[in-house]
């Protein structure tokens, strides 16, 4: 690092008009200039503690250092004040002992290098080359993995940026209304941001701006960023311990296994938790559970289940020892829960609501909302476990009940409108959080026919099954699609499969069959659908369906601005 006097002089030179105005504001800057014109002078003294004391002729005392953030003033203002600005401007315009260097030559050289503080036209982006040249690793170094994961998420959102160059290079992110100005000096901490927020948020905005700028200029770094957004657990002592334990268990055999192995497993599970290996902790606990049953000669003990657990864990540990990328490692490690991030604004169009129940004892309603701006589907799920006695979840009560974001708004209203969400929190799977800080405003609902649903709208039924995502070792995810029906041919209840089948024609002329499985709770809906004469049903409807395996399950029917949720609206 250079000695303080040199850094200080450099700093004074870098305080260009643009920089000072962006940091403070135009009014303050002009007042400082006016004060100087009125004849206020300043005297500077080195204090020796890497500070410069600046006494203004009106009696105010400022302490200047080589950043604006840490400069202080004796006046009551807790933010930047005109005195500090004056102190800087005065030093720039007058030759004071502080600014005169012992080594004159170096000083002049610097002055030639640092452009004049007075306005200079024709600034080029070339002077901000450092923004492109600084290695990504160096940029990311001061950020935590949690912040980088959020950054990765933020960059996945579309954003229009504008770049303006004066003595600073300003990147403005349109939809977030954030502007970050970078200095010529390759230092991210010197960059300025127009929003007032806490320091870690500001640091995040600065990083987002520079990364978006780099992306605009053609640097492809998304993949690298994604890799670095996973924390790579370096300590694998718990892994070695586990491998040793599993080797011991399989070498000794269950029949001769001492019961102390239970304690060893528990200790390892706790270590795994402390070292943040959620998957390992889970499987160790389940091995422990199975072994407890074994020792108790319990009827529920299942040898195959134990074998599966042991195999899975052993192979996982073996894979761990191989060369893996950070994201693969993160997949092995697992996560405790998914993170939600804030988006400033999101307009969503309600498409459907579907009640469901799982075999493991959960009931809930999933709401599907579409964002025309980025062409993606978002979901909000209201779910409850019902396996405890006395825990109930009534679909109609939840559906007509209040929404989490505004008390006066029911979920039923929400599921039929178009909304502008502000400060909405969503996760990577585009699930919406019930966070109360989210604000919601109604927007006039656009007829469904006018919205471009992109790849969600399907015309050819052949296409439906082709596009199903293939997930290795995972369950196939059902897809949500929109179909346009020109007419319904006939509806028939198939007693052998206990399903109501709706045969209909698509706009493209193809035939499709929609399936509504029988359930006591929907028997009225099914009866009603069965009795309705297909000719009476409206034509040219859009229908939201869930494509799961070979079947298409309808969720809601849409036409114009109206919407009908099959199972929830009577």
């Amino acid at each position: 690092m250079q000695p303080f006097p040199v850094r200080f002089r450099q700093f004074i030179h870098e305080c260009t008009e643009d920089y000072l105005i962006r940091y403070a504001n135009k009014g303050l800057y002009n007042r400082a200039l006016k004060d100087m014109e009125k004849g206020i002078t300043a005297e500077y003294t080195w204090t020796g503690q890497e500070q410069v004391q600046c006494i203004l002729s009106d009696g105010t005392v400022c302490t200047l250092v080589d950043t604006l953030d840490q400069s202080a003033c004796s006046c009551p203002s807790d933010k930047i004040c005109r005195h500090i600005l004056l102190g800087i401007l005065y030093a720039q315009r007058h030759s004071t002992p502080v600014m005169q260097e012992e080594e004159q030559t170096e000083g002049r050289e610097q002055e030639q290098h640092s452009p004049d503080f007075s306005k200079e036209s024709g600034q080029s982006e070339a002077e901000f080359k450092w923004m492109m040249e600084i290695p990504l690793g160096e940029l990311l170094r001061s950020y935590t993995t949690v912040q980088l994961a959020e950054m990765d998420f933020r960059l996945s959102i579309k954003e229009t940026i504008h770049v303006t160059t004066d003595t600073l290079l300003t990147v403005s992110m349109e939809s977030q209304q954030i502007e970050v100005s970078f200095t010529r000096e390759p230092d991210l901490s010197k960059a300025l941001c127009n929003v007032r927020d806490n320091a870690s948020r500001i640091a995040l905005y600065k990083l987002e701006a520079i990364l978006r700028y780099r992306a605009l200029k053609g640097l492809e770094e998304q993949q690298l960023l994604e890799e670095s957004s996973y924390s790579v657990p370096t300590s694998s002592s718990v892994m070695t311990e586990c491998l040793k334990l599993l080797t011991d268990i399989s070498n000794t055999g269950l029949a001769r296994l001492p019961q102390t192995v239970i304690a060893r497993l528990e200790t390892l599970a706790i270590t795994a938790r402390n070292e943040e290996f959620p998957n390992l902790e889970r499987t160790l606990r389940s091995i422990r559970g199975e072994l407890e049953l074994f020792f108790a000669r319990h009827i529920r003990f299942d040898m195959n289940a134990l074998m599966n657990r042991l195999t899975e864990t052993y192979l996982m540990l073996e894979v761990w020892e191989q060369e893996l990328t950070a994201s693969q490692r993160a997949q092995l490690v697992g996560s405790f829960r998914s993170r939600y991030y804030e988006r400033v604004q999101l307009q969503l169009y309600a498409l459907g609501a579907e009640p469901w129940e799982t075999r493991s004892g959960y009931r809930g309603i999933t709401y599907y909302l579409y964002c025309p701006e980025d062409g993606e589907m978002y979901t909000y799920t209201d779910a409850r476990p019902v396996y405890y006695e006395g825990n109930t979840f009534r679909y109609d009560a939840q559906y007509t009940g209040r929404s989490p974001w505004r008390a006066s708004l029911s979920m039923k209203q929400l599921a039929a409108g178009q909304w502008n969400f502000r400060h909405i929190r969503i996760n990577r799977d585009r699930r919406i959080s019930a966070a109360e800080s989210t604000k919601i405003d109604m927007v006039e609902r656009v007829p469904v026919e006018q919205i471009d649903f992109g790849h969600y709208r399907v015309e050819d039924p052949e296409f439906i099954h082709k596009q199903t995502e293939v997930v290795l070792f995972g369950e196939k995810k059902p897809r949500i699609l929109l179909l346009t029906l020109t007419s319904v041919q006939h509806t028939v209840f198939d007693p052998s499969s206990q399903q109501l089948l709706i045969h209909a024609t698509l706009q493209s002329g193809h035939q499709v069959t929609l399936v509504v499985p029988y359930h006591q709770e929907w028997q009225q809906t099914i009866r009603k659908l069965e009795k309705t004469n297909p000719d009476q049903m409206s034509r040219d409807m859009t229908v939201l369906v869930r494509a799961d395996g070979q079947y298409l399950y309808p969720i809601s029917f849409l036409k114009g601005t109206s919407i009908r949720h099959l199972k929830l609206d009577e």
Partner: protein
Amino acid sequence: MQEIRQITDTVQDWLNGMMLRGLNQLSPGDLNQLRAYAERAAQLHMDELCRLLNQLADTGQAALLGSEDRTIISDYFRLSAYIQMASASLTE
């Protein structure tokens, strides 16, 4: 189909039995059994299973002759993983 199920079940039983007794108790008799299963698997054109069985038999043989390699456990669990996936797809 019935035969495939039969062989996966037999191998599964052998694996479970081995886990109860412990791999330290591996005997020449076990290895003979493994080779027999491998032959059966080859007849059914289950090449991968045959390969895994033979490999386990080979490392088992080496272990019996005094090699202190831990690959026997690794091979054992690889075979187990194969059986697991096979029986999962058979029950579907």
